[in-house]
């Protein structure tokens, strides 16, 4: 990541900041959504499903973090965490609505 | 547990020697492909053997944990000791092939 010019450009710094926020905040959102979805959807007793969601949420956070810095642009980073979050949110909402009569 | 540790240690040394670069560095001669294959098989076999002994002696929970622990300890000793005392460590590995199973069987 070294540049021969005098330090990183502003656009570079903004991109890194954007990716970092996507990872930190967006990643956390995605991890939370995943844990909610697993807790509501997994075919296990309620306590076990919740616990499984919790245990796996950190793996999701880790993968989200890696995605945010591996993908080709900051925009893709945000899309990569927000789109699945929305999807998981919808699935969770459906599952919740189906559970509560 | 010492017996298991020695078996695992010998296993890692065998796996190390199964790599041509290390074989040449440590034993001072070029290996035949068959020798490398033999060392690799022996290495894995010894590691599995130490796992079997460990679980048999201590049950699955403690056995698995202790096996992982002695594995990490043994290979760390080998890798960091190698630049300084390769002859001693090789000798220990050779002795472990006999001593390890002996101690493990006596303990179990």
């Amino acid at each position, binding site marked *: 990541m070294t540049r021969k010019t005098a330090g990183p450009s502003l656009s570079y710094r903004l991109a890194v900041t954007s990716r970092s926020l996507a990872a930190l905040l967006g990643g956390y959102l995605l991890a939370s959504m995943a844990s909610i979805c697993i807790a509501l959807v997994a075919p296990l007793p309620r306590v076990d499903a*919740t616990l499984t*969601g*919790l245990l796996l949420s950190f793996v999701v956070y880790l993968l989200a973090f890696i995605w945010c810095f591996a993908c080709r642009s900051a925009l893709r980073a945000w899309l990569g965490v927000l789109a699945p979050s929305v999807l998981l949110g919808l699935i969770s909402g459906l599952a919740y609505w189906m559970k509560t009569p | 547990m010492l017996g298991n540790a020695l078996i695992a240690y010998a296993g890692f040394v065998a796996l190390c020697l199964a790599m041509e670069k290390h074989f040449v560095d440590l034993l001072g001669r070029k290996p035949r492909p068959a020798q490398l294959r033999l060392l690799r098989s022996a290495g894995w076999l010894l590691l599995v053997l130490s796992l079997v002994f460990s679980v048999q002696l201590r049950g699955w929970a*403690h056995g698995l*944990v202790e096996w992982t*622990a002695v594995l990490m300890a043994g290979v760390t000793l080998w890798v960091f000791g190698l630049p300084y005392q390769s002859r001693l460590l090789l000798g220990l590995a050779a002795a472990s092939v006999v001593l390890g199973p002996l101690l493990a069987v006596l303990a179990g």
Partner: protein
Amino acid sequence: MKEGFRQAMAWLHTWTGLIFGWLLFAIFLTGTLSYFKEEITHWSQPEVRRHALDPAHSLEVAQRYLQDNAGHSGTWLIRMPNAREAALSVGYRDPDGGPRGFASKTLDTRTGQPVEARDSRGGEFFYRFHFQLQMPHPFGRWLSTFCAFIMLLGLVTGIITHKKFFKEFFTFRPGKGQRSWLDGHNAIGVLVLPFHLMISYSSLVLFMYMVMPAGIMASYGNDTGKYFNDLFGRNDAPKAAHVAAPLVPLPSLYAKVQGLQPGARIGRIQVENAGDSNARVTFTQSAADHVAYRRSANWTFDGASGALLSQGKPESGVMMTAFSFAGLHMGNFAGPWLRWLYFFFGLAGTAVIGTGLVMWLGKRQLKHAGSERLPGELRLVEVLNIASMSGLLLAVAGFFWANRLIPVGVEGRADWEVNAFFIAWGLSLVHAVLRSGRRAWGEQLALGALAFALLPLLNGLTTGQGLNHSLQAGDWAMAGFDLTALGTGLFLAWLAGKMLRSPKPMARRASRAAKKPSTETAGAS
């Protein structure tokens, strides 16, 4: 990030490693010390004497003390002495008591009276620091948990970045400058990887309820308490009936537990509504008996009749997974040799971080080898490296020196021991700012070497329980501490020697790398 995946991960590894490395080093070092926290506490409170373990007798002593002093209290807690912890601890709910309305006392099992020991946090200080970071609740826990996540990220990005994972599995080449540091960093990371991954992930598991509440809230709604009741299989004790009924002798219940689970070591006993007809006594098996935490390993009795009411429910597979991670992190099940391995693996994790920090700076220092002084940012990193590593070691030594030097009766001496830790740390930071890099390292490591190596002598002179006494008496905790301090001193002395010697292989290599010949070797450090 138009470069490849591996390069992006290398970038992430390097930068998260730097930013969080200083704090992670402190967490890992104090966490590693925590594996011997009972032994450290034993050294810190030499007045607490060990007696032969007799659980039934300890229970009798505890019950008598609590009946005499806490008869009014609704909840009693008893923590049994064990092979590593000599103290019999009792606690009871008391609004005037200590923090959170709970009074606690340490009893001598022979006299049945509170032990008169110097006020010190002992090993508990390092244990609590490593996850609370001396910050107000709950900020420290959040920060340390986030650091644990960064450590996990660092391990995974490190694995992705390490191209020759298998090829260089057995490779360590000392005496080659930066190459050796990288070899060492990789080796201590790869060879002990199962431990590093376990310790990082399990840290997250231990605080998962705090940092990831979404799942529980979604599935349990407002009744999050029910989740914990479901998880731990708790039955809350009934309210007091206000009908007096003497509490059965606890040793009799202990005997019943032994009948149900022969050979079980008991960790903790909780008594609710003592002296009431609705009294409940719960025995919890010692964490030392199983790798995983076992919610099933407890027995609840009717305190008035002595009848067994319930046993903890068996765990599901998912619960065993989570409880195993918790148990593996805590390592309570580890006997002596395994505990030492835990300690060395913890030091290995600390070394992964330390070598990473040194390399981060070392690589960039090479580019500035020709110039006299480091640019500001690099100088900052250098100062922080020194203060967070050798400085932290001085802080640890400072805590122990304070423990022996502060007079026993002084009010708040436990707090002063902690202050000594932070004062020493702060002074090391100032020293690192004032001195040039290599000299600061050398001087701090040398002082650390002295401080640790002289601890056994200080111990002997101030308490009479030095090595000559403890080795003879078979007090392995006391002797072990002194010997480890001595060993640490010798190791630091060796390091200090390397730092204080004048020829610098790094500078020489750098002057070869820089195209202009440099005659100055005393420059950048």
